[in-house]
């Protein structure tokens, strides 16, 4: 059961990373706690799914969709648009290490094509590149999927349980 502690440890750091971006984007003070919470939840879902050997793209998509859905009641509760919650909260899930390896691979690929590692580098770079592209798409689309499914222009038109109508 030690993996659950690693997941929780990473979730807390994910929430802190979300807070850093919240400060950078100058969010309203009242939304800070929810941003921390959603950042942590996104990372929690992603890392848990990775632990069960699911694909990293699906894991990121699931995390992003969860954040998108949670942002709607939070927007009602805190009277602020949902993008203020979901934008900082999904950023910790952006695959920095993979992107770095992809760029490094591209640089190597500009070298001598006759070198013995060229073919392996090509395969690895394509693999990292595809992962990065699809993760970025699933993160950006994932957070707006709830709004697309609910077919409303504004969250004010969506009825939310447990939040009192003003």
């Amino acid at each position, binding site marked *: 059961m030690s993996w659950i502690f690693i997941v929780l*440890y990473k979730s807390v750091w994910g929430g802190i990373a979300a807070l850093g971006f919240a400060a950078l984007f100058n969010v309203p003070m009242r939304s800070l706690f929810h941003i921390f919470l959603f950042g942590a939840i996104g990372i929690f879902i992603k890392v848990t799914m990775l632990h069960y050997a699911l694909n990293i793209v699906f894991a990121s998509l699931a995390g992003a969709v969860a954040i998108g859905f949670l942002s709607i009641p939070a927007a009602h509760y805190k009277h602020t648009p949902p993008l203020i919650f979901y*934008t*900082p909260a999904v950023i910790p899930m952006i695959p920095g*290490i993979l992107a770095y390896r992809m760029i490094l691979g591209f640089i190597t690929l500009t070298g001598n094509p006759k070198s013995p590692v060229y073919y392996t580098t090509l395969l690895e770079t394509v693999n990292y590149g595809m992962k990065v592209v699809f993760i970025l798409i699933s*993160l*950006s*689309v994932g957070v707006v999927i709830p709004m697309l499914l609910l077919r409303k222009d504004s969250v004010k038109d969506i009825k939310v349980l447990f939040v009192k109508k003003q």
Partner: protein
Amino acid sequence: MDKIENSEDEKDMADVLLRTGTLLMSAGANTGRVRNTVNRMAEVFDYTIDLHISQRSIMLTMLNENGASHFTIVRVTPAHVINFRTISGISKLSWSMVEEKWTLHQINEELKRLEQLPRFPRWLVLTLVGLAGAGFCALADGAPIELAFTFFASFIGLFVRQEALKGGFNPYVAVYFSAFAASLIAGACSKLGFSDSQNHAYVTSVLFLIPGVPLINSFSDILDGNVQNGVTRGFIAFLISFSIAIGILTSALIYQF
């Protein structure tokens, strides 16, 4: 609400609408939000308008009762500085003006107040972004000593970016300087022997620069049908990522990673 007949008032109305739109756009709202908000405000005062929204300017045409165009105004968007507090404030404004039947003067006053709202204090932003850097390192399985290095790297990196922007550098050049400074500091972690071959600190130190808002807005714009703006934002995100890559590769050259 009564329609304002006077053409001077019509000009004032268009002015307020454009001011709201450009303020939203420069604060980092997606195009659909700008369009919805401005249209909602015009509707309250019983006007019909057409909008053309691009990254650097907004064009508005006032229509008269017959649906013919009356006049058109263009307003240039100020430099884009992400500010979610403004977006939140304008969202609140656009709802309370309906419920409380605000006048144009009241809306103008509220916009002025929103423009002057304070930002987070600089030391707090630097510290939180430093912690975010450490968070990225922790997510990549970094050791505690690497977390400390990433904290300082991100802290100094953001400081360099802010100073470069103050000094009037091109924003992409500022990102390059910042990525270079951050990766130079974090790379020392590996060089001093605190890091294994994976170089976690070095790689994650620049992640605070990732263009999250342009990236997410790019996709939501394209899904909304504002393809031009979406492509523009996507390209901006790509250019920022490219500047980060060049910055980190410059310090890789120095450290011979």
